[in-house]
């Protein structure tokens, strides 16, 4: 048995049984530029054929591998080439007609997701950090209708990068788009399927922001592991007075193990589907289940309630240790790789918002050192569109200046005030509405234009 001891095997089994270790998502990225036909109907059919031919066994094969290795694979998903690139050739500079094409395209993706029994299909989006093409504009304008009339289509807009700066024209418009989306969908759920990015990556396996980048392969399997429960167990079993560098080392060892498992399983699913293996995303991704919370890990490190002073430092230690352990484990680390802090999907974070210990300002500070950003944050339905845009701009600035990916998934919930609760159920969980500043940023936002890239981007 390769010298494996009873204890090693027992502990490995316990990671899934006791600590809820699972593969959060196996995501198949598919290039679909090659499917562009003369009409939207033809294009949709070519896309359907291509995706179905590659992904028809995704569920079945993932389940088979999951059984063989004893590690559950929770979600199977698909990411596609950004929609603005796919649809550009089909638009005819006729707004009404072209918005209909957008909806037709998205409904086709929704139907494909249903047919393949997958929960989300991503890539409905555009990369606009340098400026907006007509096709990009149509995609952005179509978001409220597409996100409220489809169930499984996920959207992204990359509005900023360290190289280009921040496209404030789009940021200003997105404040309105997000509010429109909230008003058009039940309990604003459409907004949970839209991520606004700075420095978006091409191989993100997680939804809602995942898309298949144009610099990648024809098709690829990327894997997102989940492990807050495993790290929670590691930290909980260590003495309360263990020095932080030793605590970090123990987290590294745990991250090593789960990354190894993630890579093994990802490679095997890729082999079964006869597509290339891409990367493992190390991000600690919490779920609404008890014992699977990043917030709880931070509290176990020694904070009374997550969000209090010390939270940023504790999250820095956690994120860094997870990365170091994961990078030792695999040469194929990619995606976002950090720690997710999706407020509605993490019970401890959600409770801390209720106690008003975790505020929007503190969440923003945390995003400077974790992997994503303001994720699944519910705000009052009466929030000004310019305030939404300003929150996005702040978050983009953190990403741009720090050469990292940041993202915003804000949900202004119509009719709800700060402190009230909104329940979406399922994977999305529920959240207390977080307070936003009342003071306006209207003049700043409506200046529009481009926030120039930082000096550090001129390295050539």
């Amino acid at each position, binding site marked *: *048995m*390769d010298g*494996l001891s*009873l*204890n*090693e*095997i*027992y502990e*490995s*089994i316990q*990671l899934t049984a006791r600590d809820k270790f699972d593969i959060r998502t196996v995501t198949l990225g598919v290039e679909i530029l090659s499917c562009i036909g003369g009409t939207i109907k033809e294009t949709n059919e070519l896309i359907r054929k291509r995706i179905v031919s590659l992904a028809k066994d995704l569920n079945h094969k993932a389940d*088979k591998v999951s*059984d*063989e*290795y*004893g*590690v559950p694979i929770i979600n199977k998903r698909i990411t596609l080439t950004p929609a603005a690139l796919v649809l550009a050739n089909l638009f005819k500079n006729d707004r009404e007609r072209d918005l209909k094409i957008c909806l037709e395209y998205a409904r086709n993706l929704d139907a494909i997701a249903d047919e393949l029994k997958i929960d989300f299909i991503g890539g409905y989006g555009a990369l606009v950090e340098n400026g907006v093409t007509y096709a990009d504009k149509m995609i952005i304008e179509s978001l409220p209708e597409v996100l409220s009339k489809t169930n499984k289509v996920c959207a992204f807009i990359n509005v900023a990068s360290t190289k280009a700066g921040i496209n404030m024209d789009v940021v200003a418009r997105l404040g309105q788009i997000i509010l429109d989306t909230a008003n058009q969908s039940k309990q604003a759920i459409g907004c949970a399927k839209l991520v606004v990015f700075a420095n978006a990556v091409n191989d993100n396996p997680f939804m809602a922001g995942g898309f298949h980048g144009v610099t990648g392969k024809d098709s690829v399997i990327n894997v997102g592991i989940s492990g807050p429960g495993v790290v929670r167990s590691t930290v909980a079993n260590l003495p309360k007075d263990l020095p932080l560098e030793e605590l970090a080392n123990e987290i590294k060892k745990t991250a090593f*193990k*789960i990354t*190894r*498992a993630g*890579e*093994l399983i990802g490679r095997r699913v890729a082999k079964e589907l006869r597509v290339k293996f891409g990367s493992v995303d190390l991000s600690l991704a919490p779920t609404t289940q008890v014992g699977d919370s990043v917030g709880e890990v931070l509290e176990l490190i020694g904070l009374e309630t997550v969000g209090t002073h010390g939270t940023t430092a504790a999250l820095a230690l956690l994120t860094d240790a997870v990365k170091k352990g994961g990078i*030792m484990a695999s040469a194929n680390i990619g995606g976002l790789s950090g720690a997710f802090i999706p407020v509605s999907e993490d019970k401890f974070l959600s409770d801390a918002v209720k106690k008003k210990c975790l505020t929007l300002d503190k969440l923003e500070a945390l995003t400077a050192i974790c992997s994503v950003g303001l994720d699944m944050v519910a705000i009052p339905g009466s929030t000004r569109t310019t305030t939404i845009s300003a929150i996005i701009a702040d978050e983009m600035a953190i990403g741009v200046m720090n050469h990292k990916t940041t993202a915003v998934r804000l949900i202004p919930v119509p009719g709800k005030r700060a402190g009230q609760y909104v329940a979406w159920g399922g994977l999305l969980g529920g959240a207390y509405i977080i307070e936003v500043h009342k003071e306006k940023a209207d003049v700043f936002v409506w200046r529009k234009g481009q926030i120039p890239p930082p000096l550090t981007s001129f390295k050539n």
Partner: protein
Amino acid sequence: MKKAEQTKSELPIITVIGEDKPGIVAQVSTMLWKKNVNIEELNQGVIKGKFFMIMAVDLGKSSVSFEVLSRELKALGQKIGLDISLYNQQIFTAMNRI
């Protein structure tokens, strides 16, 4: 995994966890014997107060597939009140060896 090519470090592993009681080894090994599954290595002990046994098994001469054996072991486990599972050994090696 082609059956004929399996080396010792690639053999599937059966794990058994539960309350210690007489006849566990006998019941599991009888079932494996009936299916012509060879036990190549066996190790058992008590971990955190529970009986824990691991077996590396060779399915090379057996007509039963990994999936079928896995299902039948789970069923046997339910019958005799133990958690019995079959794993591809690679998962343990990957997680515990650099």
